[in-house]
């Protein structure tokens, strides 16, 4: 599991997630991911095209980061999920909290 951060505007980052975000990997990225998303002071679009697996512990990390961004008036929008990841997000009814859209352009548009 790894991630990369790309600045897409003065107010927003793109964070690219690669690999599996689950119980056994979340510890490897938790601190860095929280710093990159929650502590950046920016909104974020999360690129899930290379995320192969997501479990509840991964969702917890995404949720806790989104909450911090939201409290600062920002947004977190997800895009490009593979079928397994989309299924997990949809099963948890996270649309309000972590909206998922097909493409990066739509995700950026959702930041407003």
């Amino acid at each position, binding site marked *: 599991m790894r991630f990369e951060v790309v600045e897409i505007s003065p107010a927003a980052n793109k964070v690219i997630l690669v690999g599996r975000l689950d119980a056994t990997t979340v510890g490897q990225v938790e601190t860095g991911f929280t710093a990159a998303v929650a502590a950046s002071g920016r909104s974020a679009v999360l690129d899930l095209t290379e995320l192969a697996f997501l*479990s509840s512990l991964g969702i*917890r990390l995404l949720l806790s980061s989104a909450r911090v961004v939201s409290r600062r008036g920002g947004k977190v929008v997800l895009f490009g999920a593979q079928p397994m990841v989309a299924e997990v997000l949809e099963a948890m009814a996270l649309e309000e909290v972590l909206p998922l859209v097909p493409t990066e352009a739509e995700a950026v548009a959702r930041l407003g």
Partner: protein
Amino acid sequence: MVLRLEVPVSLAGLAAAQEAVEAWAESQDVPPAQALRLRLVTEELLANLIEHATWPAGPTPARLEVVWRDGVLSLALEDAAAPFDPRHAPAAVPSLEGEAVGGLGLALVRRMAQRLDYGRTEAGGNRTSLDIRA
């Protein structure tokens, strides 16, 4: 058609079990989407034991059995933890305001399962069994 594992209730045990069920599912030609659901359910049930279980006689390895027969993928987990019925655990309602984060894993298990049964083993432990959604 049957995979049986003894799984130490630890993160290392969980990681090994995930790799084992995935490799087994591939060897059995289980459809990839179902294999991923199997990996997910395996993780959520074991992670729940690691995080929340109490052990009247100290932690002992859980027993995992996975069966692929006539297109049905079934999983059974036996453990010696204090009684816990996953069918009746509260489900989480994720929100941006709330701080509560528990209950997500079991909610996912319920969504990935077609049948979810719970009972006690002869030794007084928990037995959770389910069919993975096709």
